[in-house]
């Protein structure tokens, strides 16, 4: 009996392992098939590597001002040239990857859980709770995200932390809407009724049975939103409401160069390209993640 159970358990483990392998293999095949996603993922992986090894890649200290070298065009000494204070733009762009990633990740970490909790509560309880929470989110959705972020950043005062809070505040309603819609679809399923008939509390049902069902669409939405978040952060930086000098933030760098746009194009343009490429990378990857997480794609 004992050995039989052991064999049973070993077989089960083996099967599980094989199923998992199959899952990853399918995911890999889907990923390979989608060329744009390969490009997107590569860009994001490169961004991560650059952010991690910024001190190694940077040729100069991003904060060192050498006024005699100001506004130099791109050369082998300064790959991207120098800015109005003689700082090496390449080194600043490389260090800026860290700032950008930090902002994007923190916004995601703050706004998705908030949106998820509010959306699930509204969808699950319905009635007055739903009305109050959704009308609240309507207030936020009534303004363009960037305008809202600017308003909050202005109210909170300039700075990276406040920019993060401002963007998160502007972002949560879309996740709340999505989570609410998913909750409404899941809530009336028979198995929710069954678990309720077994005496599960509302909290247990929401945490254990409804939230997991909302996660995949929230993840897709978040990966598609990453680009917008980075753009908003850069926008705030450009307007002087985000990162403050001398932080090497891409939006701030674009803003710094706008006086010299005609004669010294590289000061604004090159950090601008960095923003463009990273936003595109996130968008392409987001599209791909949506396709990979879609069960219908797996069937074919």
């Amino acid at each position, binding site marked *: 009996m004992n050995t039989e*159970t052991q064999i*049973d*358990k070993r*077989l*089960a483990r083996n*099967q*599980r392992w094989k199923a998992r392998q199959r899952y990853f293999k399918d995911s890999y095949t889907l990923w390979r098939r989608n060329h744009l996603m390969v490009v997107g993922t590569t860009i994001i992986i490169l961004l991560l590597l650059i952010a991690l090894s910024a001190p190694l890649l940077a040729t100069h200290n991003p904060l060192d001002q050498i006024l005699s070298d100001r506004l130099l065009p791109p050369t082998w000494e300064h790959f991207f040239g120098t800015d109005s204070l003689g700082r090496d733009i390449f080194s600043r762009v490389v260090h800026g990857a860290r700032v950008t990633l930090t902002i994007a990740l923190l916004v995601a970490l703050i706004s998705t859980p908030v949106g998820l909790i509010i959306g699930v509560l509204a969808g699950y309880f319905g009635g007055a709770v739903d009305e109050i929470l959704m009308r609240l989110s309507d207030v936020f959705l009534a303004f363009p995200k960037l305008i809202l972020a600017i308003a909050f950043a202005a109210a909170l005062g300039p700075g990276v932390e406040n920019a993060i809070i401002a963007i998160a505040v502007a972002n949560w309603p879309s996740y709340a809407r999505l989570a609410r819609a998913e909750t409404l679809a899941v809530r009336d*399923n*028979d*198995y929710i*009724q*069954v*678990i*309720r*008939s*077994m*005496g*599960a*509390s509302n909290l*247990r049902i929401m945490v*254990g*049975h409804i939230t*997991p*069902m909302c996660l995949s669409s929230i993840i897709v939405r978040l990966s598609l939103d990453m680009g917008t978040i980075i753009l908003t952060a850069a926008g705030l930086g450009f307007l002087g409401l985000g990162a403050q000098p001398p932080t090497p933030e891409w939006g701030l760098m674009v803003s710094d160069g706008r006086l010299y746009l005609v004669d010294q194009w590289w000061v604004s343009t090159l950090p601008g390209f960095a923003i463009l490429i990273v936003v595109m990378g996130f968008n392409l990857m987001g599209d791909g993640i949506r396709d990979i997480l879609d069960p219908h794609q797996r069937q074919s």
Partner: protein
Amino acid sequence: MLLKDTPVTTDKLLSVQDLRVHFHTLRGIVHALEGVSFHLNRQETLGLAGETGCGKSVTARSVLRLIDPPGRIVSGRIIFEDRDILTLDDTAVRAIRGGEISMIMQEPKMSLNPVIRVGDQVAEALLIHDTSLNRSSARTQAEEMLTQMGIPEAHRTSRRYPHELSGGMAQRIMIAMMLVTRPKLLIADEPTSALDVTIQAQILALMDKLVQDIRTSVLMITHDLGVMAETCDRVAVMYAGNIVEMGAVRSVLKDPQHPYTQGLLKTVPDKANPDHPLYAIKGNVPSLLQPQNHCRFSDRCEYAMARCSREIPPVYQMTDDHEAACFLHDGQSISSGGKQVDLMNP
């Protein structure tokens, strides 16, 4: 497995008294239950029969207080042991749900969460009611329960997801989930109607065995009179929100006293006489939008009298354990010495 003998004890486990449930819909108030009264003894199986929409499931859900808006339990009492379920607070009701009264639903595959391993779902039934239990020992207990259910390779099956299981296997998992907490009452809402005929008998036999093992009472909802004859001690026949006849299964099936029950029994195809056309009760189920003020079966009843469309028939007691709500028994019940109890309007 033929007709069972009378129950061992007559200690009341559940007593439903004058239960009224209304649904507030756009077209008006649907009077789903209009004064339903019955009781269930310990270790007894009570069958609740009737056609679709007669209020069987509403009755079952009311017992667990699972009527959601727009539905509302308007009045009545549901006494479980010594507590009135309708007056308990939410925490106490949650402790009863799944812990003392479990409910098996019709569609086993829809009743399981598609993204959780079935073993974990059975384990969750235990975890809900015993917070001191840890996950791994709950899992072990769940696997033991699956073995008891006659599920081969319980460990491996418990790691499967619902879509990997057949309907019969899924229903076994459901039954395991509902019985693992050893409830005092099991409500089975048409547990076999979604299954193949070949599997039905297996599932019923299995349920029967487990119910005996853990000494559970059963409220069996079904529209299959064959299932009822095999599994129930007593039956209650429902029509349009009323219980029209109730009694020991042998007595009700052999000697039905209400015209509706008689019609229902006639609809069962006759094996000895296959060319005989199938019988159907003429007419349609009445709308429940009007509050009841007469016998709801009177429009379809071949014995209908003038008073049937004016008054609500009281419940007439034929024998100790057989009663029917029909005016046909008005004189007879007195002459046969049976006592007359008005359960509809106490």
